């Protein structure tokens, strides 16, 4: 426990930024069409043949950008929620926020069943995320025990899952059903700039909500009462974090489907490098979240998956064991 941090936060941010750029560039090479580096670069600036231009600009580029954006949101949200709840097991997925966002989105798909109101899907997802997060905050205000919170998250997740099954039961059309199922596995396949434009404003609004929240999270390390005596307006802080994460995670779920464990796993790795100060881990968690999701998305495009692997599935296979490992490691502090 008594080891100094391995690297300065600034250094970690630098390393992550460079790694992110390298991986983002490399991600451009992976896909059904084989492109050389030259073709990819030419495609980026529109100097390749028409097909390559389209593949690069309308398929690969938005996919990479969405992976960076969604991964960043999930990593940052995990770090934020963990700071607010003072609990290394908090995460939009574990706490049922993602599942509730999925429920909201699935209901919207059901009601729409066509693309006519597909622009409402993010709203559905955000409303679902908001309801779940508000419930969690209510529970954590009454009792801050780690176990209660995780169990509440399990309950909310189960409830949302039941709701999703119910909606699927009544899906008006097999196509709608398939759409829901594929979407719930989480994917960045065939996303366009339209999806990016759809999610970005909500994510930006969410980011605005939580600007400057880090100081309050730091103060919360000393408990809620001491944080208040340090001048932290707790009610406001809670509201900002809840609304901010719900907006951003809701938008992420809306365009990329349910992708779990990023927010859970990433802050854990960041802490291993730079220690536990809640404010310090926020930004590196966003960068590492982007990196992790980009890598996971590359895995879905490797030949081993024959193009059928889903991003949410990949993240689950990687993330769930890490989740178990973290539970194992923190079990002494769980009461």
């Amino acid at each position, binding site marked *: *426990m*008594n080891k100094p941090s391995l690297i300065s936060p600034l250094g970690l941010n630098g390393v992550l930024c460079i790694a992110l750029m390298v991986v983002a560039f490399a991600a451009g090479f992976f896909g059904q069409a084989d492109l050389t580096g030259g073709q990819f670069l030419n495609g980026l600036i529109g100097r390749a043949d028409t097909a390559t231009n389209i593949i690069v600009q309308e398929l690969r580029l938005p996919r990479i950008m969405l992976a960076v954006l969604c991964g960043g949101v999930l990593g940052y949200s995990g770090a934020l929620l963990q700071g607010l709840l003072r609990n290394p097991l908090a995460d939009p997925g574990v706490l049922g926020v993602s599942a509730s966002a999925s429920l909201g989105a699935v209901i919207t798909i059901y009601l729409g069943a066509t693309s006519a109101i597909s622009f409402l899907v993010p709203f559905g997802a955000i409303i679902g995320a908001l309801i779940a997060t508000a419930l969690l905050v209510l529970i954590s205000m009454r009792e801050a025990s780690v176990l209660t919170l995780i169990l509440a998250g399990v309950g909310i997740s189960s409830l949302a899952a039941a709701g999703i099954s119910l909606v699927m039961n009544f899906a008006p059309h097999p196509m709608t059903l398939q759409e829901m199922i594929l979407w719930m596995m989480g994917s960045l396949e065939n996303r366009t700039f339209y999806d990016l434009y759809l999610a970005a404003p909500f994510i930006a609004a969410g980011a605005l909500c939580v600007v400057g929240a880090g100081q309050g999270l730091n103060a919360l390390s000393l*408990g809620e009462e*001491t944080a*208040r*005596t340090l*001048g932290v307006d707790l009610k406001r802080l809670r509201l900002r974090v809840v609304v901010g994460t719900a907006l951003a995670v809701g938008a992420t779920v809306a365009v990329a489907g349910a992708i779990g464990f990023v927010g859970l796993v990433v802050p854990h790795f960041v802490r291993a490098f730079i*220690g536990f100060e809640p404010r310090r881990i926020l930004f590196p968690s966003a960068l590492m979240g982007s990196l992790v999701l980009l890598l996971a998305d590359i895995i879905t495009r490797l030949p081993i998956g024959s193009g059928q692997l889903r991003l949410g599935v990949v993240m689950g296979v990687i993330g769930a064991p890490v989740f178990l490992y973290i539970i194992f490691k923190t079990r002494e502090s769980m009461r």
Partner: protein
Amino acid sequence: MTRAATGAMTGFGSGDIVVRNLTVQYGSKRVLDGLDLTLRTGELVGLVGPNGAGKTTLLRALLGLADATDGEMSVGGTALSTMAIKKRARLFAYLAQGGPVHWPLSVQSVVELGRVPHNNPWQAMTDADHQHIDTAIEKTGIGGFRSRIVTSLSGGERARVMLARALAADAPYLFADEPAASLDPHYQLEMMALLHEQVDEHHGGVVVMHDLNLAQHYCDRLLVLDGGKLVADGKPEDVLTDKLLDQVFGIQVARWSDGGDSYLVPKTLSGL
């Protein structure tokens, strides 16, 4: 023990804490019942009284953690009820009883949290901040383990770190809730000495305590609460009379003196 007299005349920049008719009620239970008192810099004030007398509630009401049902509290003439919470945080530092540290943070990071009331969320710490942090670390003698993880420290070491965190705020008033309660005798004396040392013309302290000997040796003034009411206020030797100890605590004490200091030890329950 002349600090009280000098302190009363100074205290600029903050001013006296004046509490008038302070009442805190939870349901039908009056925890504080029409309290009138004045606190000033330059003195370490001990808050003593039986369990449930309202000592902690008084601190909590001043800190804004408990809502006053009635009455007024002001500092230097400014009502606390109209004060921004950040400003109040700069006036009062709070050393909570057995306050938790939820993450395995370094000693340095914990002490730095004392400066939160002085900084905007997006502001980096200034040289002045670092100076206050270093001074607090030096005063409490924890410089040797700045980079150690707080959750791995012993109770005594940890108590000093928490005190350093409170001192780093450089607030005019430091409120401490039973700071010596769970410490061994060595650390108890050390904690009380540190609390007494930090008091000067610009700094005051209010300490909730149960140990009457520590209270009479380290506090300049004692306030005795009983049933939410202030029943005594004055110098320790004037306050801790046999009559008061009988009435408030229901105990008979034995007394002796050693090298000019007087000591008391609870002997029997009154009426036995």
